């Protein structure tokens, strides 16, 4: 009897010391290894590294924006210089030719097909004419309204003209109102023309104009993503419910057969369908986070933060499907594992949200770019329109002479191909039209194009930021997992039963043994 009780005690101690996972002997060497591991991992500071790259990207973008500004200003200077000695409209380097060439090269660069080029030029010209006409009509309307006020009557808006005409008695007032009516009708007609072109631009030209087609594609993709996000999320929820039923059934019947495999496959398919759709990824991640939170709450609210992950539980958990298992199955896993899974899902959710923000920012920038491109083109076309009003007698006159307002009596040099045998006086309307056309060309080369180029730099920068954000999120997922592994390994290294833990009991046993010997 005594022998058997000794044997039982021996076995119990052997089991307690070696067989049970947590009751292993402490090792100073392992502790040192754990310390080295923690120290080396603490030194891996990816946040600092990422932020260094971010600063570099920002520095580059700032330098590029500055260079773009400088380059456009220099291009304007060069264009000003190129205009010296040129004719108004005759010859290869005339103002008219420079404007025309820039228009054509702009259209060629922005359009995908030559058919688009011709039609686009015609339509944007119509738009420019209409907008110019609207501006002139509005300015004339304001003059007439001032006149009406001077006559002592209220100046009506275009919409209130009929009522004002009905009330007017004085002939001067009636004449002024009729003139105003004429301006309003012209402005309305020009507005209709402009609107027709805008509609054409939005519909037909959308696929031909490079920037417009990029916007259309982005918008289409966004709409499609919004539509499929709802569909694929619904499919995911349904597959999730079916999977849960299959798990419950398997638990009740102790059968893990075809039914469960099919449900698992369907759930995997639903997850695959979500891939690439940021909105659906964010929604599905939120769903999983809520589910994990519910399970954690069921475990007593202990999320086990800072605790290492159980390797066994982690191996099970790191299949996304497992989180979809029944609450009982999930609850059998340890809280730290769930916390780790939750962290990964939270990262995935944040990343999907970031990508959605990038997509929206890209559309906003493309919108800006299109607006600036049309501004630039409209400015050039307006320049052409101004030149079209100039008396052809001045087309072969030097540009700088027209601007000076007087013409030389004799040729000054043999370089200029412009004829200088035209009127000796330049009418004001000719001067102002040539001035306006020149300014339009210079603004197009300088300020307007600078805005287009600036947006292009920002778009490139956005693409780079998006790519970097994707890579960094991917690396951060590694870090989250390694953090847990370091914690688990370090805890093992530091833990274990120490000899000192046994010193007192062993000493007590020895004393008993000695006491027994003495007695």
């Amino acid at each position: 009897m005594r022998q058997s009780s000794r044997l039982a005690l021996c076995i119990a101690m052997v089991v307690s010391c070696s067989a049970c996972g947590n009751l292993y002997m402490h090792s100073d060497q392992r502790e040192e290894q754990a310390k080295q591991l923690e120290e080396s991992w603490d030194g891996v500071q990816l946040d600092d590294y990422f932020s260094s790259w971010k600063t570099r990207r920002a520095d580059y973008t700032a330098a590029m924006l500055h260079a773009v500004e400088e380059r456009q200003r220099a291009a304007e200077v060069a264009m000003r210089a190129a205009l010296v000695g040129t004719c108004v409209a005759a010859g290869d380097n005339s103002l008219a030719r420079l404007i025309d060439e820039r228009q054509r090269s702009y259209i060629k660069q922005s359009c995908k097909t030559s058919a688009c080029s011709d039609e686009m030029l015609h339509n944007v010209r119509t738009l420019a004419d209409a907008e110019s006409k609207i501006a002139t009509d509005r300015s004339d309307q304001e003059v007439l309204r001032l006149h009406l006020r001077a006559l002592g009557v209220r100046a009506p808006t275009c919409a209130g003209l009929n009522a004002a005409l009905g009330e007017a008695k004085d002939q001067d007032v009636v004449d002024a109102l009729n003139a105003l009516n004429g301006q309003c009708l012209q402005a309305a007609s020009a507005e209709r023309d402009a609107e027709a072109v805008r509609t054409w631009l939005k519909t037909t030209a959308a696929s031909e104009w490079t920037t417009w087609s990029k916007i259309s594609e982005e918008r289409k993709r966004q709409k499609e993503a919004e539509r499929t996000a709802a569909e694929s999320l619904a499919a995911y929820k349904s597959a999730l419910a079916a999977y849960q039923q299959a798990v419950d059934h398997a638990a009740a019947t102790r059968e893990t057969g075809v039914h469960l495999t099919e449900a698992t496959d369907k759930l995997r398919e639903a997850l695959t369908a979500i891939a690439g759709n940021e909105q659906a990824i964010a929604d599905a991640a939120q769903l999983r986070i809520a589910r994990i939170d519910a399970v954690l709450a069921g475990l007593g609210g202990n999320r086990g933060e800072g605790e290492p992950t159980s390797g066994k539980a982690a191996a099970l958990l790191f299949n996304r499907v497992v989180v979809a298992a029944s609450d009982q199955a999930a609850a059998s896993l340890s809280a730290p594992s769930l916390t780790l899974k939750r962290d990964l899902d939270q990262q995935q959710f944040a990343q999907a949200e970031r990508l959605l923000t990038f997509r929206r920012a890209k559309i906003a920038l493309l919108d800006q770019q299109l607006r600036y491109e049309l501004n630039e083109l409209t400015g050039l076309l307006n320049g052409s329109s101004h030149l079209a009003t100039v008396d052809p007698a001045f087309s072969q006159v030097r540009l700088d002479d027209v601007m000076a307002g007087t013409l030389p009596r004799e040729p000054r040099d043999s370089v200029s191909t412009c004829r200088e045998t035209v009127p000796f006086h330049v009418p004001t309307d000719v001067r102002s039209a040539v001035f306006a056309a020149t300014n339009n060309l210079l603004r197009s080369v300088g300020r307007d194009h600078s805005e287009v180029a600036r947006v292009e730099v920002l778009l490139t920068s956005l693409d780079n930021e998006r790519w970097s954000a994707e890579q960094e999120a991917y690396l951060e997922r590694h870090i989250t997992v390694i953090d847990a592994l370091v914690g688990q390994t370090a805890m093992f290294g530091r833990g274990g039963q120490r000899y000192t833990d046994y010193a007192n009991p062993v000493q007590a046993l020895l004393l008993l043994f000695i006491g027994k010997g003495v007695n």
Partner: protein
Amino acid sequence: MRNILVVTLLAMVMSACQTPPEAMRAGEAGVVMTSALHESVVRYDSQLQATLTKQLMQLEDAGESAGFDNAAGEQASRAAGQHRSLALIAQLRESSDLSRRDVELGRARSLAAQQLRERLTAPLAKPNDKLNASTNAFAQFTSELSDQERARIAFEFARGLYREVKADQPATTSPLTAVNGNAAAKP
């Protein structure tokens, strides 16, 4: 009693040589994961370096082009001095002043560009050495395993945990370094 003590000490010695399987798995997982992270960091770094190199060339092109246009503008505006067109000459003089000022500032600007290049291309403190140290530290926990056992654990790991992380791996090539990629600004 003596038997108890002997067996107890024996068990303690035996257990001291053992590493629980979970710790081994975590150690091997750590080796795989830190190595994968190291590779990804190297890839991320080389892609960003390539992008930056390409972008710096574009930046220099833009600067050179501006310098060329400025020089052309200045030369032409000197010639324009002979003409009588007051308005255009005034505009050109203004341009010429700007251009001359730019030329005067040219040296300072090129120095600034050089400093920017140096700042942007200076080697960054990469976490590679520390990552290598972490991989080695993890490996110490699995040093008792045979190669075969390590391969088995790594395979199991790849099927589970690593696959979870790899699921969201984005395109590794930056759009700016890809052939026919997004062209940078053409001011």
